[in-house]
């Protein structure tokens, strides 16, 4: 029950993009085409889940015992930045195909605030290790859901007759507004 609560809350009710405003840059930036959106989504899922897990262990294992919680921001961002580097190197060696499709998104992920944001949130809530990994993974699923929905609509928008000042970016924000309004309907689903 507890687990289902975390899942539904992370994916729908407190969706990273629509309710928490995390990861807006890639959300607007790489959502013009459906397949790049999906690629970005998977890269985010990978780094977010792994990053949160490592950050959790370091936080509880080093920062708390030595009472240096104020180093949290510096440490987490270093974990994420180095993780991105490692993933890039490993991916390059192991799978050329995967690297070709995900590679270009990886550097962008370091400055994706959803990753750092979720890592901090997963530590703030009273989650145990398993729950915080679960929370991170399903937050990423929420991000995929948001970006894929959005990219699908944007592909259609290209052929739509939009007033000139609203072309491209402004109309995308208006669409995002309507989507986030739809997601507000999920509130109350989790008590």
């Amino acid at each position, binding site marked *: 029950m507890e687990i289902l609560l975390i899942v539904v809350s992370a994916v729908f009710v407190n969706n990273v993009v629509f309710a928490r*405003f995390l990861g807006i840059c890639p959300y607007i930036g790489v959502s013009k085409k459906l397949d790049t959106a999906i690629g970005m989504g998977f890269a985010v899922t990978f780094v977010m889940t792994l990053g949160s897990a490592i950050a959790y262990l370091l936080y509880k294992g080093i920062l708390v015992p030595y009472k240096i919680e*104020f180093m949290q921001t510096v440490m987490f961002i270093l974990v994420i930045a180095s993780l991105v580097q490692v993933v890039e190197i490993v991916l390059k060696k192991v799978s050329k195909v995967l690297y070709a499709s995900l590679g270009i998104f990886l550097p962008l992920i370091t400055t994706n605030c959803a990753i750092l944001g979720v890592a901090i949130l997963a530590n703030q809530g009273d989650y145990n290790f398993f729950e915080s990994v679960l929370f991170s993974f399903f937050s990423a699923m929420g991000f995929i859901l948001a970006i894929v929905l959005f990219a699908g609509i944007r592909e259609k928008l290209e052929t739509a007759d939009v007033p000139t000042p609203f072309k491209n970016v402004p109309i995308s924000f*208006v669409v995002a507004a309507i989507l986030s309004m739809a997601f507000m309907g999920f509130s109350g689903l989790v008590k």
Partner: protein
Amino acid sequence: MKDALQVFTRGFVSENPVLKMLLGLCPVLAVTTTAENGLGMGLATTFVLLGSNTVISASAKLLPKTVRIPAYIVVIATFVTIVDLLIKAFSPELNQSLGLFIPLIVVNCMILGRAEAYASKNGIGYSIIDAFGMGFGFTFALLLLSAMREVLGAGTIFNIPLVGEDPKTILVMALPPGAFAGLGFIIAGLNALEKKQKSNA
């Protein structure tokens, strides 16, 4: 001199980090429910940008290329933590309303962007001017959006009521959809203005 002025002013409109370059959007959307929050976030970000631009332009030659980005990130994260602690100490109310978004200044892509694209290639003097220009441009955009959302959504500005107690307001402007739509309309308005200027010239 003319050069410096140009570096300073371009952050306001022509290269505004939010309205033109679409950088650092998360805090722009998340904390702009009241003008006070918008201003606070803008100034905190400006402070971090000022610190990181200064340190990075001063130390650019000492940093080997391979570890450049991690080093920048550590510098930025350090300044962010300083701001975080200072806000907690001297303005706990602001800390309560900005919350998570203070540590997230680290990943505001505008800051890393300016470090990489400007501060690492220019002298300290110009980097400081650039930080002020971009920082104020960022603050300006935040203030614009947050004032609009506060007036329409809560009927107040800087917590001063405009239309009496308990007004009927466009509540959705204070909610997430209002942030997206508000920014969309501001950018569209700017586009329309620019087009008009061009056709006049």
